C-alpha cells in the first residue's frame, strides 16, 4: 500500500504527466460540437467535442474565441488546434482550444447554401426591395473596424471625391463569432439614428474564414430590415457573402463602396458647368430670337409700310394734280379761243373799219351820230371818214325814192 495523497496532489500529478507530453501539448483534433455555451461575462466558451463513441470537454478562452471567423453551432464538425490537459480543480480532462476551423469547408458551405436558399425563399434577395442610393448624401454611416484598413480606404476616397460628406462610424469587431451580432446591432443603431443617408458595411480582405461572419443570418436580417440604403463591401472582388445579396448595392472593395456612396465633386462641377453653359446659350438664343422678331417689325415699318401708304397717297395726289392741271390747261385754251372769236367779231363790227372802205359818218354839232333823215336844212354838221373831217351846211333834205334811185 502506497502512501495516502490528497486529491489536489493527484490532480497536480496527473496534470504534470499530461503537460510533459509533447503530443498533448499541441494537437489537432476532429470532432462535433455539442453543448456550446459562451459565458456572457468572461467571454470564454465551453463546449464538448465528440465523435460516435466518445466526447471530451473543451474550453476556448475569450482571447482565442475573438478570432473565430464563424459561430460554432451545435453539431458542427470542426477541427481544433488544442492542448489536452487536466483542469486541476475538477479533475476534469479537457482540451484548451486555440483555433477552430470548420471540418472541411463542405459542411459549412452546405449550411451556407441552406441559409442562402432559406433567405432567398423569404425574399430577402429580391431586387424589388433594393433601395436606390441617394445621389447627394450628406452623412454616411460606416460599420467596420475602428482600426481596419477598410475605414482608412473609405475615408481617403470620400475626402478626395466629396470632402463635405460627414462620416459616422459605428465601430465593430469584424472577426470572431461575436462580430455578427455587433455588425447587426450597428446596422440597426445607425438606421434608427436617422442621421445617415446611407450605410456602408465594410471589411478589408481576408481569408474565406475571416469573412465568414458576414454570412450570418442575423446580419442579413438586420440589413434587410434597414430602411437606409446599404452598401456591402466585404473582402475583395471575388468574395461573396450573404450580406452582399441582401445589401442594396454590393461593392467589390471598401474603396469601391465609397465611390458608389458619393458623387465625384469634380464631375459634379463639370456637370454644373455644362448645365450653366447650356442655360447661358439658351438664354442668349432667346434674346437673339426676340431681337430678330423686333427687327422684322422694325424693317417692315421703317422700310416698308408707312412709306408705301405715303407713296400711295403721294401718287394719288400727283394724279389728281395732273388731272387738275390738264383741266386747267384745256379750260384756258377754250377761253382763249372764245376770246379770239369775240375779238375777231368785235373787230369786224368796228365802224371805223367801215369808214376805211369809203363811208362817212354824220355828226351833229353836239357830236351825236345821226341819220340823214334827222337833219334840217341850214344846219351845220360834221362829216367824218377814216382819215379826215369836214364841216358842212345842209342845203336840203330829200327822201330818196327807191324807184328813182340812181344806181
Amino acid at each position: 500500500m502506497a502512501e495516502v495523497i490528497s486529491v489536489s496532489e493527484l490532480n497536480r500529478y496527473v496534470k504534470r504527466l499530461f503537460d510533459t507530453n509533447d503530443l498533448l501539448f499541441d494537437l489537432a483534433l476532429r470532432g462535433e460540437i455539442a453543448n456550446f455555451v459562451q459565458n456572457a461575462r468572461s467571454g470564454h466558451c465551453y463546449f464538448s467535442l465528440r465523435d460516435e463513441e466518445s466526447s471530451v470537454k473543451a474550453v476556448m478562452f475569450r482571447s482565442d474565441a475573438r478570432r473565430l471567423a464563424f459561430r460554432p453551432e451545435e453539431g458542427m464538425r470542426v477541427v481544433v488546434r488544442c492542448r489536452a490537459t487536466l483542469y486541476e480543480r475538477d479533475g476534469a480532462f479537457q482540451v484548451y482550444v486555440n483555433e477552430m476551423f470548420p471540418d472541411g469547408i463542405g459542411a459549412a458551405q452546405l449550411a451556407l447554401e441552406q441559409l442562402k436558399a432559406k433567405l432567398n425563399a423569404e425574399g430577402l434577395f429580391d431586387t424589388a426591395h433594393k433601395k436606390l442610393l441617394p445621389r447627394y448624401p450628406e452623412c454616411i454611416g460606416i460599420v467596420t473596424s475602428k482600426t481596419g484598413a477598410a475605414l482608412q480606404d473609405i475615408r481617403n476616397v470620400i475626402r478626395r471625391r466629396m470632402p463635405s460628406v460627414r462620416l459616422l462610424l459605428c465601430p465593430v469587431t469584424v472577426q470572431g463569432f461575436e462580430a455578427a451580432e455587433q455588425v447587426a446591432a450597428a446596422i440597426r443603431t445607425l438606421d434608427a439614428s436617422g442621421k445617415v443617408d446611407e450605410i456602408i458595411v465594410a471589411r478589408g480582405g481576408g481569408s474565406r474564414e475571416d469573412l465568414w461572419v458576414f454570412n450570418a443570418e442575423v446580419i442579413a436580417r438586420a440589413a434587410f430590415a434597414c430602411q437606409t440604403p446599404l452598401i456591402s463591401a466585404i473582402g475583395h472582388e471575388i468574395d461573396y457573402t450573404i450580406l452582399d445579396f441582401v445589401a442594396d448595392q454590393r461593392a467589390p472593395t471598401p474603396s469601391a463602396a465609397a465611390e458608389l456612396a458619393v458623387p465625384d465633386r469634380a464631375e459634379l462641377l463639370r456637370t454644373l458647368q455644362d448645365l450653366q453653359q447650356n442655360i447661358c446659350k439658351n438664354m442668349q438664343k432667346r434674346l437673339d430670337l426676340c431681337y430678330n422678331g423686333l427687327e422684322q417689325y422694325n424693317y417692315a415699318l421703317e422700310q416698308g409700310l408707312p412709306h408705301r401708304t405715303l407713296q400711295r397717297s403721294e401718287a394719288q395726289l400727283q394724279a389728281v394734280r395732273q388731272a387738275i392741271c390738264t383741266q386747267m390747261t384745256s379750260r384756258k385754251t377754250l377761253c382763249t379761243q372764245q376770246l379770239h372769236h369775240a375779238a375777231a367779231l368785235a373787230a369786224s363790227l368796228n365802224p371805223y373799219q367801215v369808214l376805211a372802205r369809203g363811208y362817212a359818218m354824220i355828226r351833229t354839232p353836239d357830236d351825236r351820230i345821226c341819220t340823214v333823215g334827222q337833219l334840217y336844212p341850214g344846219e351845220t354838221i360834221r362829216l367824218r371818214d377814216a382819215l379826215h373831217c369836214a364841216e358842212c351846211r345842209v342845203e336840203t333834205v330829200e327822201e330818196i325814192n327807191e324807184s328813182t334811185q340812181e344806181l
Partner: protein
Amino acid sequence: MKAPKSFEEGMERLNDILTRMQSEETSLADSVKLYAEAASLMEYCHTVLEKTSLKMEEIDAKLAQTMQAAEEEN
C-alpha cells in the same frame, strides 16, 4: 398711348399695327399715328431687350466668378 406691360405685349401690338397699316382702308392720318405708335413701341421693346442683355451679362459675370471659385477650391 399706354406703355406696354411687357416685351410680348409690345410685340403683339406691333404686329397689330403692322396688320392695320397693311390695310388699304387705313387713312394717311391714321397710318402716321400708327407709325408714331410703332416707333415708340419699338423703342420700348428695344430698351427691354437691351436691359435684358445687360442683366444677362451681369449674371454671366457673377456665375463665372462662382464657377471659378469652385474650381479653385477643388
